[in-house]
């Protein structure tokens, strides 16, 4: 290009260099177009109980799916565990919904009752593995409206973890089997300087413990009478609540456990501060990393005066959003995640109990440490207790009302009957308005 004598530029003439550049650009454009045509569909998958190890396992299972379906790409979003509830709620409220999401039982009612989730029933009808699922899997997946809005991938059942070293130091020979034994053992351990018997979860997520102690003192885990009113004001429940509160008040649990959440009780346990916690198999992962096998043991949860035990059972699974544009593909993804090879790989990593009847025979679960849970599942006097997660108000009750009121009880600001009364009011309203 140059300027003619009178100052006006000459007509555009592509120099060889410019031509080469244009050719390269064209090729690149063509290539990229053809490449994107290959990865035609992208599915969005969101996990909410994130940890680095979990994400790696998830990615490996997802990869088997991508290999089997070469024109599909899965975009995994891992939400940090702490604020995952708020984050997912914000995304969904703003319309940024994934295709498949990891759905904890506590959140199910909130999303399913608002029509956000797709029913998996039609897919389950034709799925080859549906018959291999154990009873509980389908039953719990259908907790909302008797429709499967999620397919569980595993169960979390509470059992009793105890510190063998502390027991030995306190002169306790065996884990407690009843409520009275529990309190007695806790007293013995607490007499050691700086040690406590029980790691109380006074903060977020403590509702399960209150329910467990309440139910075993009550001899029954029925939450509602036929008319939908709550049973919390029954003497049995109140006895259980008082027993737990009294343990804190008499110093059998650390003073600042009134604020403790999940991480704090696990840390309290493996640091040897308190000797007993009740928790799920996935706590084993964190504990096994920090404690030697001969330092801790796992026993079935204690039984109440009626001879029955009610460890809570929770579950998490996979759900599909109703506004997904690739429902069949999304189901295929869920089927892979929850299918026979995928589910076992997943549960091996996250430590949940299996959804397949046959999987109980997997070598993972033959490990001595899982014995306690399988004993519980096989014991007729043990009735795993399902929380009323079908209630829309349960999430608020569990995450906000229970910590606040139970802390008031622990601190002596209110009495157990008063707390039970407040809980009953909230629960009754929740149940009756849901009808």
């Amino acid at each position, binding site marked *: 290009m140059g300027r003619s004598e009178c100052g006006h530029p000459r007509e555009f003439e592509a120099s060889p260099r410019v031509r080469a550049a244009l050719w390269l650009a064209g090729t690149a454009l063509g290539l990229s177009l053809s490449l994107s045509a290959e990865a035609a569909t992208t599915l969005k998958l969101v996990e909410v109980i994130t940890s680095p190890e979990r994400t790696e396992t998830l990615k490996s299972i997802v990869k088997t799916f991508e290999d089997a379906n070469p024109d599909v790409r899965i975009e995994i979003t891992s939400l940090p565990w702490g604020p995952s*509830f*708020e984050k997912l*709620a*914000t995304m*969904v*409220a703003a319309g940024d919904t994934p295709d498949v999401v990891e759905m904890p039982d506590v959140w199910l009612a*909130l*999303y399913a009752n*608002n*029509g*956000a989730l797709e029913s998996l029933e039609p897919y389950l009808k034709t799925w080859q593995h549906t018959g291999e699922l154990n009873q509980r899997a389908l039953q719990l997946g259908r907790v909302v409206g008797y429709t499967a809005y999620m397919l569980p991938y595993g169960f979390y059942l509470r059992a009793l973890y105890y510190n063998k070293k502390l027991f030995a130091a306190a002169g306790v020979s065996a884990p407690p089997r009843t409520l009275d034994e529990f309190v007695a053992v806790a007293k013995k351990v607490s007499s050691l300087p700086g040690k406590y018997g029980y790691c109380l979860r*006074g*903060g*977020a997520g403590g509702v399960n413990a209150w329910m467990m102690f309440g139910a075993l003192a009550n001899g029954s885990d029925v939450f509602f009478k036929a008319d939908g009113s709550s049973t919390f004001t029954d003497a049995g429940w109140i006895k259980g609540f008082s027993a737990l509160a009294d343990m804190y008040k008499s110093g059998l649990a650390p*003073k*600042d*456990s*009134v*604020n403790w*959440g999940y991480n704090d009780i696990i840390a*309290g346990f493996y*640091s040897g*501060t308190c000797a007993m916690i009740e928790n799920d198999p996935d706590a084993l992962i964190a504990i096994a990393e920090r404690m030697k096998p001969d330092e801790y043991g796992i026993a079935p949860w204690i039984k109440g005066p009626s001879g029955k035990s009610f460890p809570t059972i929770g579950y998490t699974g996979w759900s599909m959003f109703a506004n997904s544009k690739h429902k069949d593909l999304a189901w295929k993804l869920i089927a892979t995640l929850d299918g026979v090879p995928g589910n076992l790989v997943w549960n091996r990593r996250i430590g949940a109990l299996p959804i397949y009847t046959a999987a109980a025979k997997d070598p993972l679960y033959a490990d001595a440490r899982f014995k306690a849970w399988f004993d519980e599942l096989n014991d007729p006097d043990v009735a795993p207790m399902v929380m009323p997660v079908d209630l829309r108000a349960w*999430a*608020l009750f569990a*995450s*906000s009302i229970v*910590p*606040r*009121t139970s*802390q*008031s009880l*622990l*601190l002596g*600001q209110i009495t157990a009957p008063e707390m039970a009364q407040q809980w009953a009011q909230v629960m009754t309203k929740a149940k009756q308005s849901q009808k």
Partner: protein
Amino acid sequence: MGAGHDQSETEPEVSAVGRRLATGAEPYFYTAPALLLIIAVMLVPLSVGLSYAFRDIQLLDPFSGGFVGFDHFRELKADRNFRAALLNTLIWTGASVALQFIFGLILALLLNREFPGRRLVQALVFLPWAVPTFLVGLDWAWLFNPVVGPLPGWLFALKITHDTNNLLAAPGTALIGPIVASIWWGIPFFAITNLAALQSIPKDLYEAASIDGASVFKQFRSITLPLLAPTLAITILLRTVWVANFADLIVVMTNGGPADSTQTVASYIFTVAFRRLDFGYASSIAAVLLILLFIYALAILSLRRLIMQRQS
């Protein structure tokens, strides 16, 4: 600037009018970028957020959204939790801001003098501000924890507390933790802004005053304070607003507990919004907080204008 002086002589009227328009619009040119950005990015969502206060917005319920008028505000008037949170907010904000302001000002005065090692000291004492609040909360929660932190043991040894329990676990003392953390984090803010303002006070004012025989205190009161006043007003105002509005430290250290003893209005809004999922009610609480803070801001700004008028 530009072409020769022929232009201005040949078209005087147009250029003069143009110049007057230009000078009239001049302030808007300078402030336009900030204004436009703030309107677009903050005020639009803010008005949407405020409008929720008059509607029933349940976060996950796509069918909610109906207009409810002042219902939320009526509910708020009778809400005991809100009143408790308001009281906590006053204590939390008042104690935090007052203490970090005082300590920050003292630090600025100390740093205003040249001494060997000043640059190093300055760099060190400003570090807390660089730590994200979430990490600050965790760090201080650990410091107060009797199992992993030194503070309970020291406080007990110094006879300040009568046991080695965690301050954060008792309703009467729980708020102390976040307050201390907030002070630690906020001192650099006041120190830096006051130091920069102190440096702009002409040194010869002090020289003249000491020649006249004024004591250090008198110089401080009659020279330093009045000249610092504009900066003080703005920084105190903004810091108060931020502390009142930010729940991070409290949420991380105590989660509003135990038994809501550290629940402030900001953390209460969070609870209502993201646990009860009731954005309408949460927004009405936020609106009330907004009004209270606005009144406070007006008070401070009028005070500032008074001081500046008295100066001139």
